[in-house]
């Protein structure tokens, strides 16, 4: 069976990022999964055990003192070394900020094809087939990398739910040298302080979003209250972001995050195409809006024409009563 590499991102202190399980599962769909990590020397055994538990059949650790001091370059060098040694059919990375820069540079360096932001992968004969969800899920496009080189694939975070069975991996540790010349330098890393225990919007199974209909930043608290009652992540329409109710990182839509949760609740959101393109693949859509003609109702499974400031508090009370 052919090998498929999964590139595992780690924090500055060496902890495995939460995309690892999904990436190993994706690699397992394409071949024997090999987890590849660029690491400071001496962390191999602990990483190997953790990655084995996530299903890696092999673990390839590329050790360099520059992991953590050069941006991206150590990761590319690690994958370049692993690809040369193992001749994989595919290299799978997260479609994260780091993942896409690594994948882009690696595809050029290895002179091979790149398939980005995919939501699923499979093998058809010798070919790696990737599924893209385009324009907010309006289209499903399948694509492949013809020719010999490994297919480089970035997977949308949270898109693949499958998990690989735990394995006892074989560990390979290689020392690599990184060419610092074409690399940017890391001066400082500031981990984000997680202010709430709310789920992250990207990949959330439930999302409550607010729009211009909330009327003010203070009123937007209503969205957060319902989100907490449902254990949901908080999102917003572009109109709410532009009005300054919430930061841009909460924006759902064509120029924000695309979500595909089990439940999406839209409060005071009219449902412009801008917004719909970011959430229309949700399993169940609930909308509450004063305007009976709001386009959001065209795609809502349950729509309420009404005032969010009376309907939502009643809903929160009803949810509380059920919980008891």
């Amino acid at each position, binding site marked *: 069976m052919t090998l498929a590499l999964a590139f595992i991102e780690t924090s500055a202190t060496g902890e495995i990022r939460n995309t690892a399980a999904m990436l190993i599962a994706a690699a397992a769909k394409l071949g024997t999964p090999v987890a590849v990590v660029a690491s400071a020397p001496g962390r191999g055994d602990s990483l190997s055990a953790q990655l084995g538990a996530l299903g890696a059949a092999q673990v390839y650790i590329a050790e360099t003192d520059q992991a953590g001091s050069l941006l991206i370059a150590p990761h590319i060098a690690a994958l370049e070394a692993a690809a040369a040694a193992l001749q994989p059919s595919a290299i799978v990375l997260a479609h994260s900020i780091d993942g896409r820069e690594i994948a*882009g540079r690696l595809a050029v360096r290895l002179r091979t094809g790149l398939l980005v932001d995919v939501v699923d992968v499979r093998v058809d004969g010798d070919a790696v087939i990737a599924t893209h969800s385009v324009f907010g899920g309006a289209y*499903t496009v399948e694509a492949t*990398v013809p020719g010999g080189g490994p297919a480089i694939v970035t997977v949308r975070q949270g898109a693949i739910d499958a998990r690989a069975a735990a394995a006892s991996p074989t560990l390979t540790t290689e020392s690599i040298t990184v060419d610092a010349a074409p690399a940017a330098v890391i001066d400082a890393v500031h981990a984000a302080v997680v202010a709430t225990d709310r789920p992250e919007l990207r990949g959330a199974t439930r999302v409550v979003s607010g729009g211009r209909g909330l009327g003010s930043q203070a009123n937007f608290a209503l969205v957060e209250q319902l989100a907490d009652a449902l254990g949901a992540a908080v999102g917003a329409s572009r109109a709410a972001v532009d009005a300054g109710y919430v930061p841009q990182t909460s924006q759902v839509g064509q120029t924000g995050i695309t979500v595909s949760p089990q439940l999406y609740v839209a409060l005071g959101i009219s449902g412009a195409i801008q917004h719909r393109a970011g959430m229309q693949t949700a399993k169940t859509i609930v909308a509450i809006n004063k305007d009976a003609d709001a386009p959001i109702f065209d795609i809502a499974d349950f729509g309420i024409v009404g005032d969010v400031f009376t309907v939502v508090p009643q809903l929160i009370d*009803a949810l509380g009563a059920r919980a008891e």
Partner: protein
Amino acid sequence: MKIIVLVKQVPDTWGERRLDTSTGQLDRSASDAVIDEIDERALEVALQYKDSHDAEVIALSMGPSTVTEILRKSLAMGADAALHVKDEALSGSDLSRTAAVLAAAITKSGFDLVIAGNEATDGRGGVVPAMIAEHLRVPSMTYLDSVEFGADGISGVRGDEHGTVAVHASLPAVISVTEASAEARFPNFKGIMKAKKKPLDVWTLADLGLDSSGFAPSTEVTSTTERPARTAGKKIVDEGNAGNELAEFLAAGRLI
């Protein structure tokens, strides 16, 4: 300092966007084509530097004839010159070919700094700037929320899923900027008039020394399917009990 800003023409995100399901390519007739907003911010980062320093700002785009419109807008905002890579053979280019051709144009033009938007609103890939940097063999710093021009290079803050990273690189370099970067200026009447006299050069693959026949794409679309339109479900008007009814609906669907 010679700054090249990459600008892309995309379907307007406020309207419907369509793919041609027979080719898998964008249906350009279905939407209004506009300059991608994020590229206006990239251009603004360059123009703010030019406002107070000696700099030449060049807008570069690849695409069909309609791309002239967004290059004219870039010139009206304040770019000094525009470059349009246009060649029939480039229709349907994938990421690899796009990056290779843009890198060839950047090399031909010469540059100290390339600024791009972090990701286009149509493709959402966010990889082309890094690919171009690899072709050019220069440092890349993508997804910068802020950019500082220093005496010997560029520094910035890069936001990722886990926090922020302060980074710097020597020039020449390629950077991409996010929506958190500069707010773009509007072209004024004077800028629009001046833009008509600024140079807008059109380059073909031959001009770039590239041979279209030996230029196979490295990826291939095998199928394109349109998702069936979503239909409306139950819609009620609140008469004082809608919150409770919604709780019932969520419970019945095992969503709570």
